[in-house]
């Protein structure tokens, strides 16, 4: 362990040494260096965290936070921006993985639980969080000038934004802990469906809120944008899934690279077209798993190259956490985090009981809904853009909530997976045949 610490320090020293030569922030060399530095250091710290019985991905996040622009500034803002390309690919790859794990036939027994949890835990927590935001109104300067109607609408939007979950963290932790069982499957199903629900709710809530501020950027326009984002993403996702399935079935060789390429195309093109890359890749994965016969092949191909993708994704995510914001909105953010946690845990327990889910699901599934990452951040930024009058301040609050959940929740969910007894139970059923040189995920 001491050697690992020494190595981390040595890498930091080298990074500092190189950056003292020229302020090449955001340049090609600076970006290449930051990529390598984050990959290596996050990998190390992840290993250290594993030895401390914490999730590796919390280690990756911690590296991003500490080395990022808010603390040591070894990886500057501009480099973090440039690395968003790799995080885009990572999101698509993670969503593709999540999609391939959603096999409707095997999930049929869990559908009832998933439906109830989505309705009660997620839906209920949205209302709870909206109420909490209203109660916190005296502590939130941007809400003090608003009318009651406006406050209600904005509180609803904030409730939706802050309830968002993270399929990325759920998938990464499932892989890291090699978990399998009803809790793992239920959580995955809920966060994926929850994502769709949150996107839909956000569109409706933000449209309503904008109308209370006199914005006439009409219903039709917003509905079109929403339809494009949701339906367009799903349809294009199915087409992408078909292309991938044909490639995996007919061409086969180099499938791993083809999958990565597709993820890159999905991420880059999707972002510029205002599609949701997460939904596109998710739909592709679901299509391949449930309609084609190459679901296992795809899963295996993704496994081979997924570790660097996860490492860089979470490290960059950590580097984008705005610690400075936390200081400003600390108290309300902590209150919202606690309320969100309580709402999701309690709601899941009740919903799982109503659905007659196994005891382990009742007790532990709620913890899987706590982590937040990409979607919540994206919605927070979108919120700031939609409401320029107060969006920055409100955005700071949501970013603060996401930051806390991003750091703390993965460790909690990991403990839950271990306690549920599902950690380490994932047999390599997805791998059709081990291929030389393409083994392994890190163990828990």
């Amino acid at each position: 362990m001491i050697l690992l610490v020494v190595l981390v320090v040595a890498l930091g020293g080298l990074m500092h040494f190189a950056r003292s030569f020229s302020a090449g922030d955001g340049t090609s060399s600076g970006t290449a260096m930051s990529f390598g530095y984050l990959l290596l250091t996050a990998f190390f710290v992840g290993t250290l965290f594993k030895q401390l019985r914490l999730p590796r991905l919390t280690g990756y996040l911690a590296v991003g936070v500490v080395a990022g622009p808010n603390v040591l500034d070894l990886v500057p803002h501009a480099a973090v921006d440039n690395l968003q390309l790799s995080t885009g690919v990572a999101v698509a790859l993670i969503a593709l993985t999540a999609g391939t794990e959603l096999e409707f036939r095997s999930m049929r027994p869990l559908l009832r639980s998933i439906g109830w949890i989505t309705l009660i835990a997620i839906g209920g927590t949205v209302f709870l969080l909206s109420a909490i935001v209203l109660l916190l109104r005296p502590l939130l300067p941007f809400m003090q000038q608003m009318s009651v109607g406006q406050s209600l609408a904005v509180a609803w939007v904030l409730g939706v934004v802050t309830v968002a979950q993270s399929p990325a963290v759920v998938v990464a932790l499932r892989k890291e802990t090699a978990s399998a069982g009803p809790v793992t499957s239920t959580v995955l199903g809920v966060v994926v469906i929850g994502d769709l629900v949150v996107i839909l709710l956000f569109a409706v809530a933000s449209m309503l809120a904008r109308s209370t501020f006199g914005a006439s950027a009409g219903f039709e326009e917003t509905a079109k944008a929403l339809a494009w984002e949701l339906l367009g993403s799903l349809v294009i996702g199915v087409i992408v899934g078909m292309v991938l399935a044909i490639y995996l079935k007919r061409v086969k060789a180099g499938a791993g690279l083809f999958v990565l390429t597709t993820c890159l195309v999905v991420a880059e093109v999707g972002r510029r077209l205002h599609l949701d890359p997460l939904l596109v890749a998710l739909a592709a994965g679901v299509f391949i798993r449930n309609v084609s016969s190459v679901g296992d092949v795809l899963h295996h191909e993704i496994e081979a190259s997924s570790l660097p993708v996860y490492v860089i994704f979470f490290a960059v995510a950590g580097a984008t956490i705005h610690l400075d914001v936390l200081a400003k909105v600390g108290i309300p953010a902590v209150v919202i985090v606690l309320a969100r946690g309580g709402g999701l845990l309690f709601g899941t327990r009740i919903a799982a009981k109503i659905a007659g889910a196994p005891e382990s699901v009742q007790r532990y599934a709620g913890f899987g809904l706590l982590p937040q990452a990409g979607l919540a951040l994206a919605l927070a930024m979108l919120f700031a853009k939609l409401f320029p009058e107060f969006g920055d301040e409100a955005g700071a609050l949501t970013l603060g909530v996401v930051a806390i959940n991003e750091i703390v929740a993965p460790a909690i969910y990991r403990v839950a997976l271990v306690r549920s007894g599902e950690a380490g139970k994932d047999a390599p059923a997805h791998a059709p045949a081990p291929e030389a040189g393409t083994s392994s995920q890190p163990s828990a």
Partner: protein
Amino acid sequence: MIAPRWTSMVVLIGLLLAGSTVARADDAGTLAPDEHDVLDASAGDAEPVPASTTSEDAAAQAPIDAGADATDEPTDEDDSVAEELEDAGAEVDAGTDEVEPTPASSTEPPPSDDPAAPALEDVPIAKPPTVEPTERPAFVIKTILGLLGLLALAYVGGHPRVQQWERKLGVAQLVTAGFPFVALGLVARAPSVGILTDSVLAALGPLLRVGLGWIGFVVGFRFDARMLANLPKGMGTLVSVRALVTFLAIASVSIVVLRLVGALPAWPWSDPMLLRDGVILATAGLLTSRTTPSLLEKRGGHPESVSLVQKVLCLEEIAGVFALLVIAAYFRPHGAGVSWQLPATGWLVLTLGAGVAVGLVVYAILLQSVKTNAESLVLILGSVAFASGLAANLRMSPVVVCFVAGLLLANFPGEYKARLGETLERLERPVYHLFLVVVGALWRIEDGLGWGLMVAFVVARLFGKAIGTRLGAASGGVALRPDGRRALVVAPIGALSIAVVINARVLYPSGSTSIVTPILGGAVVTELLIHALTRATARENGDGPRPASSGEGAA
């Protein structure tokens, strides 16, 4: 099964496809702010102008000639001239930024109007805007069609009948060597195609640096120091004489061609830039493709010849990397963007030190925490990216720094090598082919001087290697068999040679673009020469024609 090269090509096209979205978006919008950066910085890497040029002349040349203030050593006076010019509205802003260092009087043609500059310049990377809603349907259709196109290309490219045609047409060796990827880069860069635009190339800048580092790392990792202990008698002399003669032949011919045919006939013979370009070409030319021994073996060469050729090439690689180290240390940029001023020997030590430091860190990691292939992948990718970025950031050579790191890892004790080698092998072709696409995009094929230089380069290299091999073998007392001698003389140009010139272009982005053609064009010509020679030899021996690919993959 589809051939790996086609698979990689499919991936590359995919990447280009993604890149094209950036291009289209750029075209749709107004000039992105970052494009100003690109232009500024391109000028910023100002190189000296002819000594006769006055500041007034320079002002008259602005904004093209950003090096108006660059004469010998930059002085306060020079800076003040630049400031005055700036104040006067002349666009010489970058003249103070990065000036070619020169031990003596230096003159250089005005910075070339290099369309590939964005990938070479170390400037902030452009941010592409989003696509307008009205353009989205066309965009989506194009993307889907692109993906289907990739699929079709992969299927057709891997078809046995297509591969049979390649062999019949005699282009199989060029295809195997990765030249279709260079061609792909060239085509994608063409204005009528418009895929690899300035902004896309700028976004691929980090990849170019990582590609350079990757080649250096792979070459270093394949060097087994134990070979040095078993060198036959006279081998040192053979390699030294051969390398020296080849080096001198290419350098002198290149300098003469550049001086006589180059853009500025007023270029003095003593100009360090002239020397620099000559030395870069000579360094690239003295290197030989790693695949030469296996090619010789395929042709039925004697095992002794194969072994000897292998050792010669290994030692030449060391010489080539050393030459690159010296070039990067002695021709340093300096100016506002660079905060350290060290003597050249300091840079030599620093470059080696950086390589050693990275090598030691990676070694420690390998011993400590790498247990699986996935972890090995993270480590290799991270290490090469970090080392390449670090080197490029310090204006050192990524090839050299990564070579040193790879060399150490190959020769330190430990059981990690098999896994590391496997990981390197798995990623080698995709990385190399992607690198070739970017290289193709940087290649200014319409440059007449480059082609003239290419002819001189190929001839000088051939004669240099022939005379050097003969002299070296004679003075070292090494008995060379005819097959071994032929392999050493008509030797294909390898990945490391390409890396040397591209590395030079990264280090001196506004330098002469003409140095790329001799290596890329020369590589094609040499391949064809080898193919013809093999067929002729086979006919002489009464054998059927054998496949004669140099099979250059990576490094």
